[in-house]
């Protein structure tokens, strides 16, 4: 019960935040002018008329490397539960070796990606 209580306060803060945003948007609507003209509603492109669509195709060169991020982030999440117990009685040296095995995997992963050219941008 105590555990969830903490998050109920967090939930209340979130509600407060939504109220804050809602009130400021509503107040803004009451305060500001609204005079749309076709030129004003045009997408901004340095003053000339926009060329083509805004949702342009771009090369997503981050694709492989977004994968890299997901893999490493999921890996590093496992560090947290381990971090709370690794130094307690009865673990000691063994967990330390395990840590180096884990870090070794991460390091080899990065080195591999590096060698494969994932970490090159120019």
């Amino acid at each position, binding site marked *: 019960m105590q555990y969830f209580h*903490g998050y109920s306060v*967090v939930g209340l803060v979130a509600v407060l935040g939504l109220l804050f945003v809602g009130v400021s948007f509503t107040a*803004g609507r009451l305060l500001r002018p609204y005079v749309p003209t076709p030129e004003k509603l045009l997408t901004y*492109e340095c003053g000339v008329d926009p060329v083509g669509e805004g949702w342009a195709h771009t090369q997503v060169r981050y694709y492989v490397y977004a994968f890299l991020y997901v893999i490493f982030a999921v890996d590093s999440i496992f560090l947290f539960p381990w971090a709370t117990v*690794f130094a307690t009685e009865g673990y000691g040296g063994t967990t330390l070796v395990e*840590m*180096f095995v884990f870090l070794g995997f991460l*390091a080899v992963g990065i080195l591999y990606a590096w060698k494969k050219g994932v970490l090159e941008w120019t």
Partner: protein
Amino acid sequence: MNAIDVIVTLLGVLLVFLVLPLVVGQTEHKVMAHMQGRVGPMYAGGFHGWAQLVADGVKFAQKEDVVPDGADRRIFQLAPAVALLPYLIVLVAIPFAPGGGVGQAIDAGIFFVLAVMGAGVLGTLMGGWASANKFGLLGGLRTAAQLLAYELPMLLTAASVAMAAGTVSLTGILDGFEWWWIPWQIVGAFVFFTAGLAELQRPPFDAPIADSEIIFGAYTEYSGLRFALFMLAEYAGIVVLCGLTTVLFLGGWHGPFSDSVGWLWTLLKTAVLAFGVIWLRVTYPRLREDQIQRFAWTVLIPLALAQIALTGIVKVVI
């Protein structure tokens, strides 16, 4: 905890959220000006332009809120709120004084704050995409790439602190703090703080909003109140990042007479870090996008892994 306590907590969080970012913003106006041989705002409010940001706020509230015809209207309008709210929510979990001096102690504190802070970037991404503007799209993609690169070193160094303290609770970390943790975790502190700066897109990591190349990135099409909320999110982000660095790496409320003035120590350390953030903006030129990426993967992540190894060895041997 009764209803009155909860209400006091909520109002306190809102007050801190609305005041501290403005203080940082005003300090930035003045500090930047003096570092560049100017005096900065002097008129608004009379005394050294103290009310400049209040005046800015009044101006923003009166400006027309233009949503381009081509934009994805609802997402475009919601984006500033998504960018702003995570920082408000994070504030409640940051401990500022000993003996329960925290909005709400959360057992999985580190986890909670990192997860919620990461969500803030979604707002920028939403804004960049929904604008249907080429500059906005480029800025949004750069923001996303920067998050991908810098979230990892941040997670790893936070894990290093969790290892040192043997807990993931922020209050628990401060209870276990000893002074020699500062030199022990100094590399982690550098990595965490730098990665945080990059996630906030503060100079020198501000390629996503580089005005000389892509106007203002994801915020190009924003005006009026919604633009102001994005700006508020940036400064609230500085407060949260400096506060978190203080708690995780600099001992938070620890210091002489911490029983009575612990909150002052938290505030002081946070302020010094925030000053550093401003100083960096004035000092360093903007990094190029590929330099930003390379810095994260080839400098910060190896350093973070080394810090974890060091933390593990010291913790088990001692």
